[in-house]
């Protein structure tokens, strides 16, 4: 199982506890985790279901640069962290 965690900056808008979902590619993992809180999806994805440009997704310690395809394969015990990118002022 893959663990998906949403940072407090997202959870202050829509609560979502860490989710344990089946391994697969990153899009499937994120979509599966967001089934627990569908209202959180528009905070993570834009209208075209791409990761918002000011949201950052980490797989373990690595920042995922791809925001569109999200076809990176995740393995069991991987940890996905979704945070707000440190942009703006």
């Amino acid at each position, binding site marked *: 199982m893959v663990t998906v965690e949403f940072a407090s*900056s*997202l959870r202050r*808008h*829509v609560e979502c506890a860490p989710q344990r979902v089946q391994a697969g590619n990153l899009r499937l993992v994120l979509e599966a985790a967001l089934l627990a809180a569908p*209202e959180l999806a*528009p*905070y993570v994805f*834009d*209208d*075209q*279901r791409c990761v*918002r440009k*000011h*949201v950052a997704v980490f797989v373990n310690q690595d920042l995922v640069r791809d925001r569109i395809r999200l076809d990176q394969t995740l393995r069991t015990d991987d940890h996905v962290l979704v945070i*707000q*990118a440190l*942009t*703006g002022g």
Partner: protein
Amino acid sequence: MQTLLVASRKGLFVWRGAGDQWKMRAHHFAGEPVTQVLCDPRNGDWYAALRLGHFGAKLHKSSDQGNRWTEVASPAFPPKPTIGPMADDPTPWNVELIWSLTASGADQPGTLWAGCMPAGLFKSEDGGRSWALNTSLWEDPRRLQWMGGGNDYPGMHSLLLDPRDANHLRVAISCGGVWQSRNSGQTWELTADGMKADYLPAGSLQDPNAQDPHRMVQCQSHPDVLWVQHHCGIYRSTDGGRLWQDIPAPVPSGFGFAVACDPQDPLRAWFAPAQSDMHRYPVGGKMVVTRTDDGGRSFKLLDRGLPAHDAYHLVYRHSMELAPDRQTLALSSTTGGLWISPDAGEQWHCLSRDLPPVAALGWVRDWR
């Protein structure tokens, strides 16, 4: 007592008062940019559009005067086609900003319209629980010629429903002119004849599809009378917006963003002039409002109580609003100023000079 909603860069403020006695009563969405507000005249519901820097445009609704807010759906574009004429559309199919919100007529309960940036028009028939893009206007090939006006993308900031027929829509776009639909958005007509964009190449100055109306308002009791504060001056129409007459620039300037008009008197409107597009602050640092009482033939300069010097406020397009009493006028600025006039602009009272930049104002209407 009257209630004014102030949508700012750092939240939604609620002011209540009368005359020169006003107090801030509440601060909602503290710290979040609020881009538009609506008090639904049909049932008193409040709507607040947010533009979260990281998480996009959101819409919240309150049915109890702001005591409790619930997030509802935000307008969103459908998946962008990968084939066909829209496949190469350079405009992102992502709502970045909800710029205009309008409640439909009493005969269409639950129906709302939202104009956005990029300039998509969206309709909700269930009080904001869901939204659908108006594809007729969005897929019009002329839409691809629209430009951003000081923004990356074109935006729909003005959205008017004719009081005689809620299926008759008029929208204004920066920069995409004025469009009308008489059948609730099924078909559209471009109606910006008479407007002139003096910065465009010769031969294109009067292209109706390239005009930059900054704000458009409509006289409720004489709906064929509309006013526009345009990038290049002031326009008025007396035929429902088909043809626009250029109003000679008043002193001190014809440049600005905001316009408000009297809902009963078709000859009366207010403007908040700035020096020019290159100098977006009051002429000479002296803040004024201008008002015409004769359809634009003459203007009265209103400055009593407004900053007289060293003032660099800019009034955004939704930041001058007339209350339902037709006398109380509210004015706010990008520099955090908020003023109220109880007498149609003759005398102004400063409520604050310390607010965040203000994007929009909305009067709470008595709906009972």
